[in-house]
């Protein structure tokens, strides 16, 4: 793949999964219309979900999932020592994601409820930055493949990537999506970082904040508006805490 006759770098990428639904790595095989170009721009050396090959060293480790067990801590640390660049892929890896919701419950009790007298090992959920140094965080539940493609372009041309400072709201305006509040729904679009191209509001659902906060979000004003629109503190709090990506109390 050349642009203006110049050969770009072809980064060696390995994909690893921890506690997750594996939906983010699945996005790497989606967006089929540009899949061939995407795969020819990178070199996949390890990707357990779709390949049995193990082609040795890698420059970039993509990490999907949160950390919830001691063996995951060890595995992640070992990957960190081998990777030049370690990337958190998706909301679970960046913030803990929905996997972090269990931290609000007594884990011994949870274990008894699910496994009875044969409990399974489990630790409170942590994002990967709480265990190892992370070089880049790509949020999203799931990640936007279009954004991943943009980031890969920056990587192979050696140009730093900047996430948008603006919130999801801006992208709804660009798409002529009617505000979900006008449909009587709660929406976190005004405080959540854009760049996803706002698929949830366009599909009929308010934003749930999977991408973390926009730059300088006005949480107080958001909560005032949500209350004015008739949403209870319980509803607002359930929404804000859903992905563990917006650290604020309603």
């Amino acid at each position, binding site marked *: 793949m050349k642009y203006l006759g110049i050969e770009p770098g072809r980064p060696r990428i390995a994909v690893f999964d921890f506690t997750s639904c594996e939906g983010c790595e*699945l996005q790497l095989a989606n967006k089929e*219309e540009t899949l061939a170009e995407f795969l020819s721009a990178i070199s996949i050396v390890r990707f357990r979900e779709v390949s049995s090959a193990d082609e040795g060293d890698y420059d970039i480790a993509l990490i999907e999932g949160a950390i919830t067990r001691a063996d995951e801590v060890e595995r992640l640390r070992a990957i960190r020592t081998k990777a030049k660049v370690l990337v958190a892929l998706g909301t679970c890896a960046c913030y803990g994601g929905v996997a972090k919701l269990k931290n609000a419950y007594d884990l011994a009790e949870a274990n008894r409820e699910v496994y009875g007298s044969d409990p399974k090992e489990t630790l409170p959920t942590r994002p990967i930055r709480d265990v190892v140094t992370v070089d880049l965080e790509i949020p999203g539940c799931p990640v936007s493949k279009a954004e991943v493609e943009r980031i890969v372009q920056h990587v192979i041309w050696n140009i730093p990537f900047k996430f948008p400072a603006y919130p999801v709201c801006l992208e709804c305006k660009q798409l002529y999506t009617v505000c979900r509040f006008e449909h009587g729904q709660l929406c976190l679009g005004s405080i959540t970082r854009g760049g996803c191209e706002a698929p949830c509001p366009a599909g*009929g659902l308010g934003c749930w904040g999977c991408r973390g906060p926009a730059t300088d979000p006005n949480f107080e004003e958001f909560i005032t508006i949500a209350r004015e629109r008739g949403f209870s503190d319980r509803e607002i709090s359930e929404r804000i805490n859903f992905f563990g990506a917006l650290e604020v109390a309603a």
Partner: protein
Amino acid sequence: MKINLDVDVHHLTRVEGHGNIRVAVKDGEIREARWDVVETPRFFEVMLKGKHYTTAGILTARICGICSIGHCLASLRATEQALGVTIPETAAKLRLLAKHGETLQSHWLHLFFLAAPDFVGLPSALPLLEVKPEVVHIARRLKGAGNRLCDLVAGRTTHPVALQPGGVARMPPREKLLALRDELQRSFEDIGATAALFGTFAIPAFQRETEFVSLKGETEYPWIGGRLISTDGVEHDESDYLQMTNEYVDTRNTSKWCRLSRPSFAVGALARYNNNYRLLHPDAARAAEQFGLAPVCHNPFMNNVAQLVECIHVTHEAIRLIDELVQEGPVETMTEVTPRAGVGVGAVEVPRGILYHHYEYDEEGYIIRANCIIPTTQNNANIHQDLPALAKNFAVDGMTDEKLELLCSMLVRAYDPCVSCSVH
């Protein structure tokens, strides 16, 4: 000659999630043959407690990155049963269309990217991009059509947004539905080429008598709701799913195991076929016949063929549904939902088999108790039971560790397991 074989696979590749295979044959005797799931538990059933009815479908979609639409639909069905909601007929059609999109993207992903490489001696489908790009382009087009169908109807293919309590948020634009209809119609050429390719694959000759569980189709091949049936003659109402699943905890597995008339049973495309083959589209039935798939088929490797047969059926069904939907004028796709106390069960056939969600709500619409029983949870004990039989079958002169490892891996992959789902 005394045969000694040793297979030890840690974190099997080309499956969703983390599982291990261990087989040891000593002096011709099977000493050990195991399938163990070591995935980290996530405790979704606990997290659901105290959540609002509008959150349940969004949360449980995250159980699985591949069949998130199926989880969302089972969740919505359980919620709507509990809250006494009947969704508009058009919404039911849209949900089924989204379901078909998911079946297509998931089955094509499995057939091309996870299963096929074993039959052509490759570690993955990625090298095909260099040596046989036309196959990758067929896979890309077929899987892409499934994903575009999900995007159009559910708003997104992974973790849907338009599927909500009360129905579906909006009717997709007519011209986009018609464009997808054309794409699906054109895909039959690619499907034909795929069937020809899979016709060249040598499916391992292996049988183990198995009980197969699925929804029972009455007039149509079943996907969403209805009675439960097994090939051993067990039949129950959807709400009595616990009598069909009988989950229990195994010490060495983070996934639970299930049993019915025998120590284990199977769900998935082959189970749906075995119980409902009479209801397939004639083109799909013809393809089954050409592949030598006949009910009741007890060869688990034939689940790959059953998925291909279902892709043909589902493509026809999706076209029929689009034809019906574009005939409808501006119609309501949502009905109002009022919280009340209640209990509901939703059973949905997702790509890997029958899935159950079961919720109890308080009068304000918050969940008191939840239970989810996942297809791969139901299959794990059966895979575990298959392995000794497979090892016994193939522990013959000329067998090597590498060949047996490949056969065991292919067996597990044939179930298309969703391991992180099975632990949830």
